[in-house]
Every structure is written in structure tokens, then in C-alpha cells.
């Protein structure tokens, strides 16, 4: 390994910030918020890493990227070396550098964070990937000799792409099946352009194809082909189909025009590019007063999308308080900066609409207060009787999670499902009860994050490789 560097005695370098678009400008456009490091900034930030002998950051990474090693390469100015190091463990670095919750993973473990700010590992990973994509030579990581084994990956979201990337490098013949017309799953339909440009998702998928993987879009496994039919042609099937069915609030008035699930709202805007209507054919209600219900990352994405679609007021209505928001701190901060208005401790009771036009006109909510902690450890919101109030809105986005999609599971005999309809799989290997079938990501855990789905993909790909090469 490279030289052992003690904590620098020279002038202390502060954590380098990524330049970003000012909030009052970016709230009106769909371009990416942070612009990324320049090579100078990246090398300066890389100097802050003290190259621990027993790096804690790696333990915090679900796919175990060799973090100090790639940072050392950036410090030396060997950007190609850095991306090669990352590729050994991660096929989607441009995505991870942007959407991973680093503050609770690698950066949360970084020793520098004890006294100072942690090394900006996410920003550096993003830099290495962007540098390679924009300026790098046409290189690929080394690949094992072909094994002759065939693997079908169902779903091209983060877990599926991780499994595909891992197994292609190990010499297996991998085909990824995607139901939509573009690959990427939630990376393409869910996460907005301003947080993850679609060109980057396309480029990461193209990278897998250059490695020799095949991606078949417009393939709805469970309908166009069943899992049992895939098993006739493939040695192994991996199911990474995501969660699916959106959950609604189950309150009166959800049929009014202007009420969306977050999945629909984001799919229209991201996948179908409805923000560019009528240049693109798919429309979306461009509300002036938009309320998003929920407090996770998807809610932040929806509320910020609403601003960019021209909303004068974009509210987030959440039944607990700011402290309980499940979204990443950085996302909440970005939303606040851009002018998203938070209505905490508020629970929706019913939507109001104009019966003649069918359009949404408002929502009636009830004030809440925090009571005793519930099973999740968070203080439970309790209604305050008589505290009803109305908010005038023309668009509502419901971002309170997703249930399991029955389309694939119902057509696949032999899979064990839990009471929520998710696939039961061994948490260490991703093996399901059905022989030669593995599963991971949201269809196993319920709605979670990109990197957790990738971590599940990594465990499954290790297990699949063992099965294909050693037979168990």
C-alpha cells in the first residue's frame, strides 16, 4: 500500500465544499444542484484522508469499496487508478457518489469526523466517476474468463445492476430484464434529474453493456415470460423488481384530478419528461399550490420537483416534527433552501375538490402533538381535537411508501412471501425458498435506499457465484 501518512501537522485543510447552483436559481431548473469537484478541489480534499491502517469507512460501506486506496490515487492525481479501485467493488460509482446517505455510512464512520468534518468520501467517489466518464480513456476493469453459466437478472434498479456488474466481471453471461422502456429502475423513474442526471444512469447501464452484459427493456417478467420459463434457459434467476404498488392515504377525495402518488408524479416528470411538455407528449398537472405528504427522500424529491414545475407554494405536510423526518439531512436542507414550506405535526383528513370540474381545491388537516415513543422509538403523533384547518392546494403528491407488486410474485410458484407480500430471502445470501432463485432490494425489505439495495445485490452475487462455481 501507499505510504503511511500521519495526521498532517501542517496547516489544517477544511472539508472542501462542492460548488453548487444558488437556491433561488436552481429552484426554477432541472439541472443538477452541485456541480462537482474540480481536480484541484478533489486532490485537496483527498489530502485530508489520513489513510488509516484499519479503515472504519470501509466497514460503513455496504459494498465495501476500498475507500482509502481510491482516495490515495486521487491525491496522487491518478484519476484512472482511482476509478479502477472503485470498480473492483462498485459498478455504479457516479450514482452512489450522489445518492448514498454517506453521513450514516462511510463518512459516518470516518475517524476525521470525531474532531473535525469527515472526509468527503461521497464527493470524491462522484469526482472519480465523473472524471472517468467525461475525460477518461475507454478502459474497462479486468474480467474473468467465461464460465458458460447464464444468469437472468429481473429488474434494472440498483440491486439488479449491482448483481449484473459483479457477475459479469466474474465471467458469467448476464441478461438484465427491465419492464420499462429504459433501464435504471428507480434511478431513472424515481430520482429527479436535479439530483441524479439521467445521462449518468444511461452511462452506468452502458458501462455494463460494454462489459458484455445484455439489457432487455420492455420485458415484464411474470407476464411476457415467467420465472419458471427463465429457469429453462438460465442457470440462475435474481429478482430485484423493487417495491411497486404505491400506498395511498385512504382518505376521501383521492380520486380528484391533481392527486398523485409520488411514483406517478416522479415517473411523469423523470422518465416521461413531462416537465418539458408539450415538447414531450406526457402531461403533468403543473400546480401553483402543491402539497406533498410524507417526510422521506421521495417526499423531498417530489416537493422540489413541484417548485421546478412552477409552484408558487410547495408544502410538505408531515404528521411528526422536523426531528423525526426520515429524509437525509442534506435533502431536507436543500428543500428548505429552495423554499419548500414544511407543515409539521399535521395529518390529512380529506381532500376537497370541485365536483363540477373534478379538480382538487384543498386539503383538510388536523393538528397533532407528540406523545409517548412508539415501537419505532419515535414519539407518536397524537391528534389535537378540534384543530382542523384547511390548506388551498391544486396538486397533492402522496409519498408515504409503497407496497409489494404482485405481478411477478403471483406468477411464480414456490416463492415464500411474508404477510406484506414481500419475498422471503436469506438476509446473508439472498437465497429464496425456490431453487436457483435469489432476491434482494425493496421486493425483500420493503422501501429502502439505493445503497441498501446494492448491498443486498452484493451479498446475492457472492452467493450466486459460489453456487455457479462450486455448486452450493
Amino acid at each position, binding site marked *: 500500500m501507499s505510504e503511511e501518512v500521519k495526521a498532517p501537522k501542517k496547516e489544517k485543510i477544511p472539508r472542501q465544499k462542492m460548488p453548487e447552483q444558488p437556491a433561488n436559481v436552481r429552484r426554477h431548473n432541472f439541472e443538477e444542484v452541485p456541480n462537482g469537484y474540480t481536480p484541484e478541489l478533489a486532490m485537496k480534499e483527498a489530502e485530508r484522508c489520513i489513510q488509516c491502517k484499519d479503515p472504519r469507512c470501509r466497514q460503513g460501506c455496504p459494498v465495501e469499496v476500498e475507500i482509502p486506496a481510491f482516495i490515495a490515487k486521487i491525491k496522487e492525481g491518478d484519476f484512472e487508478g482511482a476509478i479502477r479501485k472503485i470498480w473492483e467493488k462498485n459498478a455504479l460509482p457516479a450514482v452512489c457518489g450522489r445518492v448514498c446517505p454517506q453521513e450514516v455510512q462511510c463518512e459516518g464512520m470516518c475517524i476525521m469526523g470525531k474532531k473535525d468534518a469527515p472526509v468527503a468520501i461521497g464527493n470524491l467517489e462522484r469526482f472519480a466517476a465523473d472524471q472517468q466518464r467525461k475525460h477518461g480513456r475507454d478502459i474497462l476493469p479486468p474480467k474473468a474468463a467465461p464460465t458458460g453459466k447464464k444468469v437472468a437478472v429481473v429488474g434494472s434498479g440498483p440491486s439488479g445492476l449491482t448483481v449484473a456488474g459483479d457477475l459479469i466481471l466474474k465471467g458469467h453471461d448476464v441478461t438484465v430484464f427491465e419492464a420499462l422502456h429504459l433501464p435504471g429502475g428507480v434511478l431513472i423513474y424515481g430520482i429527479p434529474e436535479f439530483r441524479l442526471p439521467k445521462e449518468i444512469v444511461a452511462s452506468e447501464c452502458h458501462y455494463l453493456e460494454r462489459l458484455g452484459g445484455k439489457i432487455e427493456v420492455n420485458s415484464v417478467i411474470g407476464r411476457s415470460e415467467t420465472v419458471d420459463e427463465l429457469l429453462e434457459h438460465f442457470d440462475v434467476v435474481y429478482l430485484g423488481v423493487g417495491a411497486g404498488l404505491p400506498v395511498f392515504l385512504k382518505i376521501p377525495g*383521492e380520486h380528484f384530478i391533481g392527486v398523485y402518488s409520488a411514483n406517478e408524479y416522479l415517473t411523469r416528470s423523470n422518465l416521461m419528461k413531462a416537465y418539458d411538455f408539450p415538447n414531450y*407528449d406526457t402531461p403533468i398537472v403543473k400546480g401553483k399550490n402543491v402539497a406533498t405528504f410524507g417526510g422521506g427522500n421521495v417526499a423531498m424529491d417530489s416537493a422540489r420537483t413541484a417548485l421546478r414545475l412552477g409552484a408558487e407554494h410547495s408544502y410538505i405536510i408531515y404528521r411528526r416534527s422536523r426531528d423525526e423526518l426520515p429524509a437525509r439531512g442534506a435533502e431536507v436542507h436543500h428543500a428548505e433552501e429552495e423554499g419548500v414550506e414544511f407543515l409539521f405535526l399535521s395529518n390529512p383528513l380529506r381532500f376537497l375538490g370541485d365536483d363540477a370540474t373534478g379538480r382538487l381545491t384543498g386539503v383538510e388537516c388536523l393538528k397533532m402533538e407528540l406523545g409517548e415513543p412508539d415501537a419505532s422509538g419515535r414519539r407518536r403523533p397524537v391528534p389535537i381535537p378540534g384543530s382542523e384547518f384547511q390548506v388551498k392546494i391544486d396538486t397533492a403528491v402522496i409519498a408515504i411508501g409503497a407496497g409489494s407488486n404482485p405481478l411477478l410474485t403471483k406468477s411464480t410458484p414456490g416463492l415464500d412471501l411474508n404477510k406484506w407480500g414481500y419475498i422471503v430471502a436469506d438476509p446473508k445470501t439472498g437465497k429464496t425458498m425456490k431453487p436457483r432463485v435469489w432476491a434482494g432490494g425493496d421486493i425483500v425489505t420493503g422501501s429502502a435506499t439505493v445503497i441498501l439495495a446494492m448491498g443486498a445485490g452484493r451479498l446475492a452475487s457472492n452467493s450466486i457465484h459460489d453456487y455457479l462455481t462450486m455448486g452450493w
Partner: protein
Amino acid sequence: MFEIVERQEMAQGTIISNWIKAPKIAAKAKPGQFVILRANDKGERIPLTMADSDPAKGLINIIYMVVGKSTALFKTLQVGQFYQDVIGPLGQPTHLDKVGKVICVGGGTGIAVMHPIARGLKQAGNFVYSVIGSRSKDLLIMEERMKAASDELMICTDDGTYGHHGFVTDKLRETLEKHKDIALAVCIGPVPMMKFCCKVTKEFGVKTLVSLNPIMVDGTGMCGCCRVKIGGQMKFACVDGPEFDGHQVDWDELNLRLRSYLVEEKVSYDQFKAGHGSGKCSCGS
């Protein structure tokens, strides 16, 4: 890319039939199921229930009415040209059980959707009465194919230019009165037609299937756009349907949600017509 191998204009060019090369879909397609089509990179995802399929030749048949920008764009596609995306088969297939006597009612392009269902019910050993209707004779489609798929075919036109002068509900009522042993009705067409057919069959206590056409985006159960209320419960037409018990459907809600984008649809269609007429558009025709 999915090639159009046969194309026919029907009903004075207002309704188009395409046979599309899609072997994987054709191998699996069953009556009552739909596909989602997209003409090009900027296109909408449009759900259409299949009118027929030919697994041996690897073809599927869609029949659609030109009602807006997307279907107008579809209409420009000629034999040898391609749909960028065709996805399917989607939705639950019709249960084609033998129940005895059935009546199949189709209106407008609903006749195309009805056709494979009527044929399937006949093949399953049922006696099939069919009623098909349109505004006038020129707009009636698939008379011959429906005749072959039925044991008895009745035709209605709103203006009396062909067959019975009146709505399909007239013939539906007459037939149900005459044949008390009809065990099942299948009604497919515009929302008002299905709604009124269901009123009639309810009077006679005859179980009725309808095929719903709400707006969809992904069509695979992910977005919830196609939610409909069935017996007071929220269902997704793309994975739970598109067929439902007609007596349980909240028709007013469906009708309301179908009007979600009337303004945008007009903007889009007007722009298309202006561009297409002036030769500035890039649709290639």
C-alpha cells in the same frame, strides 16, 4: 423496435388497425389483455387492449380510434415502420369459462376489444349473442369478424343507417327479455355505453364484465394512475383489471379521472396538427 406488417384504415380513417411484429407478446397474449405502445422517444405510453394475436406468425393486432396527439402520431406510422416500444401482455386475461348462454355488447372501438373475448367464449362452448353498435354505418367496424365469433349477431346504429335504429342497450334489453337463461354479459365500449349496459343487466340480475380504460403510465402496478373504485375499494386497472364486475364500478369517478388532461391534450393535439399540416413535424410521413 416493433414493425408494423399490416395496416388498415377503418371507419373513414377514424379507426386504424395495425398488425405488429412482437413474437414474445404474441406467444403469451390472451383475450382481455393489453399492451402499452410508444411511437418514439418523446412519446406517451398508450395502453391498448389487443384485438387479436397470431402466435404462429408472431403478430399482435391493435385497433384504435384517433382521438389526440398520440393516436394521430400512431396513424402516421405505415407498413414497414416501427413503434419504438411495445410492452405486454399486461393485465388479467378474461376467464373464458363455459356458462351456457352469454351476450357480448361492443360499441365503437370496444368491438375490437370484444372480438377475441366473444370468439373465446364461443370456443369454450357457450352460445354467444353479440350486439355491436356505432354512431352510423360508416363507422361500424369488424362486422364480419364478429359474425364469425358469434352464434347470433345484432347491429345497431345511432342514426339508423344500418341495423337497428337506436342504442345497443335496446338490443341488450330485448335479448335478455327473450332469453332468461343468459348467464353472463360482457360489455365493452365508451364509458357511458358500459354504464348504461350495466344498468340494464342489473335489472335482469345478469353478471356483467366490463373492460376499463383509465389513463395509465407504467401499466405494471407501479404508479397508481389507473386507480378505479370497485365496490368502494381502490383497485389498479393495470394489475387487478382491466376487467371488472360492471355492477361494482364507480362510473362517475372513472369518467372524471379520464378528463384529467383535457386541456393539455388539446394543446398537444393542436400543436401536432399545426406542425404536421405544415410539413414541419418530424414524424416521417
